[in-house]
């Protein structure tokens, strides 16, 4: 029982980290809190479903197409809406939330509600770990999560685009002087964030059904992990998703799954009272926040 909880807590934490990576990347680089994150996540899920079930495209191709499409839509959203609002934080928040709501509610309106909206798992079967039986898809999620985290670290430290990303995040004007086009990089970072949301959707959604409510939950979880970890800090995301992930799993086991949402909110409030900048937030972020 306890061992099972440890394992499922780990899986839950990786799921949270996966969902948050994209949100955190976009925020860290372009400073836009992308409230359409949950919308993009669900968009990716429904796109795969449509491509796979209605257009009969092979599953793996559908997955790749939907990740590319979601990233493209993220980029478009930045280029045509958010770019015009740069610097107006409040407008950015409102506009991106509106885009997210449009995506989620359009699918609901178009009748995409029900138990048939599921994605097939990549690997079926289950693996016994100790006394607990864990299905292979969940282990796959852990693998993908770790792989993505390592990939992102290498990407932001050893590629030209990744270094440019960090450049505009740290000091935009200096980056401009060095010939980095900050608008282009911000658009790319949004596309990357959307793509990461899509990847998260691809591996996580097969565990349940695709539904609009899931989009809001994803957004809230991402927000909670980001605030607790310190916005824009990759290390903070990992630590915070483990804290919240295990807290959620324990709560779900002892109190019932309805209470898991409240864990995120309590975590936000607690961290704000104890350390407003988040676990790994820096001084700079305190000024922005408080």
């Amino acid at each position, binding site marked *: 029982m306890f061992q099972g909880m440890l394992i499922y807590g780990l899986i839950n934490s990786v799921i949270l980290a996966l969902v948050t990576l994209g949100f955190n990347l976009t925020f860290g680089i372009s400073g836009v*809190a992308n409230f359409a994150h949950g919308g993009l996540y669900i968009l990716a899920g429904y796109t795969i479903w449509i491509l796979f079930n209605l257009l009969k495209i092979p599953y793996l191709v559908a997955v790749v197409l939907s990740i590319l499409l979601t990233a493209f839509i993220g980029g478009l959203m930045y280029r045509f809406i958010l770019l015009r609002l740069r610097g107006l*934080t409040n407008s950015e*928040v*409102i506009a991106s939330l509106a885009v997210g709501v449009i995506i989620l509610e359009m699918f609901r309106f178009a009748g995409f509600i029900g138990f048939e909206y599921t994605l097939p798992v990549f690997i079926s079967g289950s693996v016994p770990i100790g006394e607990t039986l864990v299905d292979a898809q969940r282990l796959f999620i852990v693998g993908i999560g770790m792989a993505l985290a390592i990939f992102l670290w290498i990407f932001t430290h050893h590629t030209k685009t990744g270094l440019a990303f960090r450049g505009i995040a740290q000091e935009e004007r200096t980056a401009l002087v060095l010939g980095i086009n900050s608008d282009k990089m911000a658009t790319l970072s949004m596309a990357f964030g959307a793509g990461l949301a899509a990847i998260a959707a691809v591996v996580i959604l097969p565990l349940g059904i695709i539904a609009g409510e899931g989009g809001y939950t994803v957004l809230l979880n991402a927000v909670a992990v980001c605030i607790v970890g310190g916005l824009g800090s990759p290390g903070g995301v990992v630590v915070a998703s483990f804290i919240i992930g295990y807290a959620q799993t324990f709560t779900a086991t002892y109190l019932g799954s309805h209470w898991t949402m409240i864990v995120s909110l309590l975590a*936000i409030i607690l961290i704000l009272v104890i350390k407003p900048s988040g676990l790994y937030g820096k001084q700079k972020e305190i000024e922005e926040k408080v």
Partner: protein
Amino acid sequence: MKTDAGTKYRKERIDRGIKARAEDIFALSSLQEMLYLLAPRAILVLGLLILPLYLGMYGKKVLINTAIFALLAMSWDFLFSVGMVSLGQALFFGVGAYIAGILHDSLKWSPLLTIPIATLGGGVICSVLLAPILRLRGVYFAMVTLALPLMFVRIIEATRIFGGTEGIHGLTSLPSVWFELYLSLAMVIAVLFFFRRLINTDYGLVLSGIRDNDQSVLRSGINIYWYKMQAVFMASAIGAFAGAFMTHAYMFVGMPAFELDYSILPIAAGVVGGTGTFAGSMLGAFILVTLSEILRGVGGVRIVFYSVLLVIFIVVVPEGIFHYLQRKYHQFERWVKVEE
């Protein structure tokens, strides 16, 4: 630019001379000028009071709905004027609605008692709930306010308190539809003029200062958190009134009170109408609710429709409709010869 018989003309815009110094300070010297200032306000108030006489039952219900959304929109606008972006007006609405519903259901108090209690109680509860996050600005505040109403829905679902997913049915309605109508309209007018007056007083100046640069207000020895708390209390009390009122108008309270509609529409109304003047967000609510009634046949896409308008306006017309109208009203336009 236009050309008439070989002479070129250009359009010249001039501000009316009675405006002195600032946006809202006028130097009045004649009856005509007083009328000029009084006319928009008088037309609004009289219009709102007379309009219901010409409406059928359906029109009256729509007008009540509109008034409620206008209240929520003005409450959103007020928070926005203090620099707090609330993405969860549904929290205020829902808390007010549930307080009125519970008091009425368990203690059988009359609506005339439950609505004022819910207004004040909702204000207090929401202020306490938001107190820990008042230290946050912009994005961070917005994130948490978005989460709170959703959280309430989950709590009610999980614990099955307050009627659970069923809600509380069979509440008493207000005495008559006329009473409902004029109560809501009177509230809209009162809130509109109260906020417009308040934001121009010294107290309102501090609030605007917090929006523009809270650090410098803080350094002038003013406790900005206390001021923010008061602003949240006022905004949430108005939201709670709207909720309590709707509980009795629908004779039902349930989880829909925390629905996203109540969060998105006020934001859309504020953005479409124009923020900061309160008349703008009220106008926005009137436009949006009327439009969505016209589009009723389309069904559940209402919220998509609001969101699309929201995106279009925030990108293309960021100042909003009201600021445009106001500018036009305060300006002459005339054609003058272009000197070559």
